[in-house]
C-alpha cells in the first residue's frame, strides 16, 4: 500500500486539501464534517483547547475508522479523517471527516458514523483553557474493552 499522510497532525487542518484527496468521478455526493473549537464549554467561557493523543494508538484507531466506513458502506468512493493535536484557538478545526459516495444518503451516514467512532475509540484527550488561566479536562467516554457497536 502506498504510504499516505498521517491522520494525526499538529498543523492547521486545511479543509480544501482534505476534499481534494477525495475527488472521484463516480461520486455524486461529498460530505465534509469539521469539528471546531467552541467558545463555551463545561467550565464556562473557553479561550482555546489543548489536545493530546497517544499517537501510535490514535493513528491506528483513525485508520480503523476509515476501514470501518469502507466495510459498512462498500459503495463509498473515498474516506479521509484527520485529527489535530496541540494548542487550538476558538474557531480552529480540530477534526475533519470527508466521505465521497455515489449518493448523499450513504455519504451522510458514513460521515456521521466516522465522527462518532472517532469520539469513542481514538485515544485523544482535550482540555479547555479558560480566560482566567485554568485548564479543565473535557469529560470523555471510557474505551470499550470489547467493541460492542456493529463491526
Amino acid at each position, binding site marked *: 500500500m502506498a504510504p499516505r499522510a498521517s491522520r494525526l497532525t499538529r498543523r492547521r487542518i486545511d479543509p480544501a486539501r482534505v476534499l481534494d484527496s477525495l475527488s472521484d468521478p463516480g461520486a455524486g455526493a461529498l460530505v465534509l464534517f469539521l469539528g471546531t473549537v467552541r467558545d463555551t464549554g463545561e467550565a464556562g467561557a473557553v479561550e482555546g483547547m489543548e489536545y493530546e493523543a*497517544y499517537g501510535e494508538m490514535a493513528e491506528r484507531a483513525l485508520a480503523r475508522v476509515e476501514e470501518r466506513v469502507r466495510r459498512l458502506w462498500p459503495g463509498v468512493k473515498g474516506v479521509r479523517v484527520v485529527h489535530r493535536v496541540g494548542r487550538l484557538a476558538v474557531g480552529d478545526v480540530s*477534526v475533519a471527516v470527508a466521505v465521497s459516495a455515489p449518493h448523499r444518503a450513504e455519504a451522510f451516514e458514513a460521515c456521521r458514523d466516522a465522527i462518532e467512532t472517532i*469520539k*469513542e*475509540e481514538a485515544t485523544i484527550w482535550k482540555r479547555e483553557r479558560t480566560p482566567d488561566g485554568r485548564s479543565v479536562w473535557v469529560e470523555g467516554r*471510557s*474505551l470499550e*474493552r470489547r467493541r460492542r457497536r456493529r463491526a
Partner: protein
Amino acid sequence: MVSVAIRVKVLYFAQAREAAGTGKEEVSLSEGSRVSDLVAASGKAHPGLQAMSRVVRLAVNAEVSGEGRVLEEGDTVAFLPPVAGG
C-alpha cells in the same frame, strides 16, 4: 526459586499523567506479572491513580488489553482515561 525481573515501559495520558506526575516511567515487575499487578504497583507509587481506576483502560503495546494479560520484558503499558477526541 530465583525470581526474575522484567522491565516494562509505562505511559500515562491526560488525567492519568497528572495523577502520576509523569508521562512515562519504567517499572520492574517479577516475571509472570499481569497487567493488574502493574496497575496495583502504579497505584501504590502514585495514589492519585487509584481514584480513576474504574474508568481508566489499559493498553499493552498500543492495543486495549484486559488486566489479566501476562506482561513480557519490554512491553509498553498505557493508562488511558476516558477519551474525548473530536
